[in-house]
């Protein structure tokens, strides 16, 4: 005889709960946590390096680098700037999750930090499914990826707070309909904050840095 058992339990609830713990930990230390997501090659690390270059000395940053391969290329670049970095090698897994984030936070000198930026694995699908416990989710879209991405990767566009449109210095050379791109973004996420910039030339970074500095200050006063 078969018996049906009612359950109704949320899948990945344990990840969400651990993410909430990570958040509490950051909150207690008044650290702003950012989860930076993007496709491979969108310029996550270059964006981070330019941000480090412009970061006021009063803001102490720690970086968590997520990669599928056992390399420290990205973390090496961050450390070369004098910023503490932890490299997570996911061993082929396509995203970071709350457990890996917790382990990485253990390795950072949290007591000395004001800001933790997590560079997620380059991927537009999987990272959107796993909360890490950060305060803001940031997506970097870049001009060479094409203007149709919001229409194809709806989930990640829906779950973000900030959109960085990177590599705007390439706009004159590529067919990228900014109106079409932004229409898709607005449909999915009308309230997000958007910055258009170039990590190469530095154009547009003033607005992004102003936002970042204000958010770090806000975290301190909460």
């Amino acid at each position, binding site marked *: *005889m*078969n*018996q*049906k*058992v*009612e*359950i*109704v*339990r*949320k*899948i*990945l*609830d*344990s*990840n969400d709960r651990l993410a909430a713990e990570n958040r509490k930990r950051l909150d207690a230390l008044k650290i702003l946590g950012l989860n930076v997501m993007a496709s491979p090659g969108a310029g996550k690390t270059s964006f981070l390096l330019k941000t480090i270059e412009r970061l006021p000395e009063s803001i102490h940053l720690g970086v968590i680098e997520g990669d599928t391969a*056992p390399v*420290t290329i990205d*973390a*090496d670049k961050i*450390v070369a700037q*004098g*910023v*503490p*970095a*932890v*490299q*997570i*090698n*996911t*061993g*082929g*897994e*396509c*995203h970071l*999750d709350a457990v*890996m984030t917790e*382990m*990485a936070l253990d*390795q950072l000198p949290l007591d000395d930090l004001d800001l933790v930026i997590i560079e997620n694995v380059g991927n537009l*699908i*999987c990272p*959107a*499914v*796993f909360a890490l416990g950060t305060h803001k989710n940031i997506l970097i879209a870049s001009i060479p990826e094409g203007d149709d991405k*919001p*229409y194809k990767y*709806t*989930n990640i566009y*829906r779950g973000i707070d900030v959109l960085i449109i990177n590599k705007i210095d390439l706009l004159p050379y590529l067919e990228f309909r900014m109106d079409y791109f932004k*229409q*898709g973004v*607005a*449909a*999915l996420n*009308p309230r997000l904050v958007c910055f258009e910039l170039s990590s190469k030339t530095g154009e547009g970074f003033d607005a992004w840095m102003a936002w970042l500095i204000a958010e770090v200050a806000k975290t301190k006063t909460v």
Partner: protein
Amino acid sequence: MYIPILKDCAFDMHELAVTEDILKIALEEAEKYNTNRISDIFLTIGRLSSIVDDSIQFYWDHISKDTLCEGALLHFNRPPAVFKCNKCGQEYEILDDLLPCPACKSFDLEILSGNEMQVDNIEIETEGKDEPES
């Protein structure tokens, strides 16, 4: 400045983590009953959840081996996403593509549902076994 390196297990796509959680939930719930086999698992996974059924099934066949769930059938309920137009109030369903409001073509939309991911219920075999303990 040093770089600690953390290595994790050799996983693949995010569906594996989802599938493992489904197995964990099913086994935990079945433990409350006197059963030695789970025959069916009913899932609701919204269309906006970025989950591929076949992927879940593939992982399921591997990780459910030698558990009470071995051979259990997965039933997928994939409800469409429901959007509401902020301009004219029209509610409509979306299966895969992002489409403007069918009534007024506006892209000013609110998402009402479509991101669900849950185990609804399981079917267990209780033949020759006592009534549930709880």
